[in-house]
């Protein structure tokens, strides 16, 4: 049926059904975003440097004595990590919005909420996870007592997943706005508070020598709720920002 035409490329494809290929589309989006981050490692470092800088403010602001620092260490580490992750959320869709690829993502014949999941996964992998791995290092700076380093990393690793997912809803809503970054943090910070409470709660329990896996399980539960509910909201907010 394809009548050969002048150029080397054959004629248009006959009209076809929307095949599967969802997995391939998500994998391709995941790989593309990962390559984009790899090409500009500076962007991925910014949240980590911000995290370290915020941590160094506290000994200067409060006191260098290890005993006093140890008291505030769990809370300060978690809040600083949360703010660093929040900082990087504004760029989650903004790059794609400006160069037009976000509009093309909405045009793919696959459910947008799953494609968006691939982008959020890259954000977590390049922001949330590094913050969680770096946190113990900064824990030493704040004389964080022994026994809660693992709790710190584990809760941050899972908790930053929630932050990426819920934060992406705010990022989707504010991607089209000129000064959306400030508004974004105001929209999503209230939604991060439960994760913060259980994150620092787990560290407190670990410090007391008690069981902290229960707290981690609650963060895991929050993460699974976010995994189920957030993508739909992210897709809806992107459609609002792009098509109004």
């Amino acid at each position, binding site marked *: 049926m*394809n009548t050969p035409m002048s150029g080397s490329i054959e004629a248009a494809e006959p009209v076809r059904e929307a095949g599967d290929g969802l997995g391939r589309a998500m994998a391709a989006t995941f790989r593309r975003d990962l390559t984009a981050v790899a090409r500009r490692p500076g962007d991925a470092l910014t949240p980590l440097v911000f995290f370290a800088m915020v941590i160094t403010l506290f000994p200067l602001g409060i006191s260098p004595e290890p005993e006093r620092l140890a008291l505030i260490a769990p809370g300060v580490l978690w809040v600083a990590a949360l703010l660093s992750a929040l900082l990087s959320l504004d760029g989650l869709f903004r790059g794609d919005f400006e160069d037009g690829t976000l509009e093309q993502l909405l045009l793919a*014949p696959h459910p947008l909420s799953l494609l968006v999941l691939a982008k959020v996964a890259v954000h977590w992998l390049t922001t949330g996870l590094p913050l969680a791995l770096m946190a113990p290092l900064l824990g030493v700076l704040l004389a964080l007592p022994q026994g809660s380093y693992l709790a710190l990393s584990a809760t941050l690793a899972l908790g930053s997943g929630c932050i990426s997912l819920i934060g992406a809803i705010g990022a989707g809503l504010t991607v089209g706005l000129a000064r959306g970054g400030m508004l974004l943090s105001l929209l999503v910070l209230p939604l991060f508070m439960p994760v913060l409470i259980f994150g620092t709660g787990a560290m407190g329990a670990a410090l007391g020598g008690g069981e902290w896996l229960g707290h981690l399980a609650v963060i895991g539960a929050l993460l699974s709720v976010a995994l189920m509910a957030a993508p739909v909201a992210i897709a809806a907010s992107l459609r609002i920002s792009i098509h109004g």
Partner: protein
Amino acid sequence: MRLCLEARQLACERDGRWLFRGLDVVLKAGEVLRVEGPNGSGKTTLLKILCGQIADVDGEVRWQGRALPRARADLLANLLYLGHAPGIKANLSALENLRWYQALGGEGRPDAELEAALAEVGLAGFEDVPTAQLSAGQKRRVTLARLVSSRRALWVLDEPFTAIDVAGVAALERRLASHAASGGAVLVTTHHPLSNVPGVRRLTMDGQRQVAS
């Protein structure tokens, strides 16, 4: 199955004003439909409605005879939409950009064919250069390479002729004509007369924004 996109009695209200009302559009295989009208007359909005991107409008859009909300995935599987923005990631190479579009659309063309498409738009040798380092004209041609590399039946192009030199315009017109001749369909907004594209139909948006009552 012959391509057929049609819209019945489309009416779109934007913030209290009728962008257009009672609009009928039919686009069949082999046709090139040019949408023209003053700026702000709703050309881009009409395109987005016909691609199923904007849904809260009156009237009905049908793809292959099926109403849009249900037929939306099939429409998108056959759609190639080029908007105002280039749709190219700056720190990725032209080839990587095309590869992403192939996977997104589930077409899975081999790299050789993508490189051939880039060569055909005059980007031979620039396949692996990050597009940030290409000139504006070259970036434009990477976008147009999608027309060559992706064989979707329905092309919807929003002002594709902007920032293209004379030779580029002629090449693009030839490509639109050959796509229509081979059974595809083109819906395009442009201020360009499309003089040497045979059988161009025109849809004029009068831009008369009556009050929505």
